[in-house]
């Protein structure tokens, strides 16, 4: 599959709740209490959207291959 998603975390917004690392441990981990994506490009996985939609700070952005934001919802 060439279709890949791109994950970014805004470290200034992140408050280290650990929600993303718990909901999608294959995609996020906390480094010094700040969420960090394990890989910036990933094969589409609902868990990534779950994590982005569950973040109270909306610190996680997921873009599709064309660069459109697919999470969080506006």
């Amino acid at each position, binding site marked *: 599959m060439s279709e890949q998603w791109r994950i970014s975390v805004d470290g200034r917004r992140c408050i280290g709740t*650990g929600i993303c690392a718990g909901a999608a441990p294959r995609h996020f981990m906390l480094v010094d209490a700040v969420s960090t994506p394990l890989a910036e490009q990933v094969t589409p996985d609902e*868990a990534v959207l*779950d*994590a982005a*939609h569950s973040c*109270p*700070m909306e610190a996680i952005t997921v873009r599709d291959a064309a660069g459109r934001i697919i999470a969080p919802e506006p």
Partner: protein
Amino acid sequence: MTDTPTPQLSPARPYPFSPPVRPDPDPPYAQLRRTQPMVRVQLPYGEEAWLATRYADVRTVLGDPRFSRAASVDRDEPRMTPQRVDGGILAMDPPEHTRLRRLVARAFTARRVEQLRPRTREIADDLLTRMIDSGPPADLVTAFATPLPITVICELLGVPVADQDGFHVWSEAIVSTTSLPPERIREYLDNLYAYIAGLVAERRHAPRDDLISALVEARDQRDKLSETELVQLIAGLLAAGHETTVTQIPNFVYALLTHPDEWERLKSAPQLIPNAVEELMRWVPLGVGSSFPRYALEDVDIGGVRVRAGEPVIASLSSANRDETVFADPDRLDLTRAVNPHLGFGHGVHHCLGAQLARMELQVALAALLDRLPGLRLAVPEAELAWKSGLLVRGLRTLPVTW
């Protein structure tokens, strides 16, 4: 070959360690963090458990997917109450947990909550105007701390505030341990669920711009959750959405009025309020004890012991928040504390859904009190204050104040 000595497990200690007479963390925590950071405890009901008291271990237990809440469903879960209450979203793991959580998470983001701030301040000011008109003295619990969060969560969900005489009483069932007899807890929960089911039916018929309508739509048009989940989720939001903040506002005010230097500091520097709320979240041990054990899904080495697969672990937020390896001078209330990664709202997938809402409400409550009642003080000697008992949370029955 040498025999590995089997570590002698000391008998499980009864837990919680002491009754909630003041908002002080149990003294044994400090000693345990130093000498026995993973200790065997026996809660009032259910099987024995490990108790984690160090900050790093608490974060691991709450944040690491090797520890499960869902596994508690089939076990005699360590708990504070004789009855097993349906855990709902608190007894789920990802991805089931996340499926439900993301339906409501949008309503509780920092961005959404910020839009509620002006209205929250308006409610706070109205309540204080009424309190000032009829006092001093006044009971801050009934005049201010209770109606403020209830009004906010009702408006957000779309629950008529006028119905609070019913649901506020029933909500106690969610945080009760021994304050209510088991049959009364069941009765209150049934009342609460029936009441919510009625609101769900109303919104299904005539949707409005509120969270209940949005959740009904998520169920009916997108089949995202079951009817039982829908009702339990809303009941949980309504109850958790106010029981905790209702309790924390008086706890915070108590903490400040018994630390007059800090209260004065806040008066002269109100820009410190957000920082003060974080420090008070750290310093006030809201939970009487900890519960909601996580079950190890595999053997995990943590805090110097090996937790075997299938064993439950309880994580003490109150102890973690006083861990001297993370917080300098941890027992001191310091509103200017710079480094404060407290766990007052928990950690991991079950991190408090309403954390941003609670932060905003607590900030508004303190700001309104400082503006309107700078001379606020206790109306009775501190020793006369009565603390609630038989609940999961530590709080004041009444908080008599004058100004």
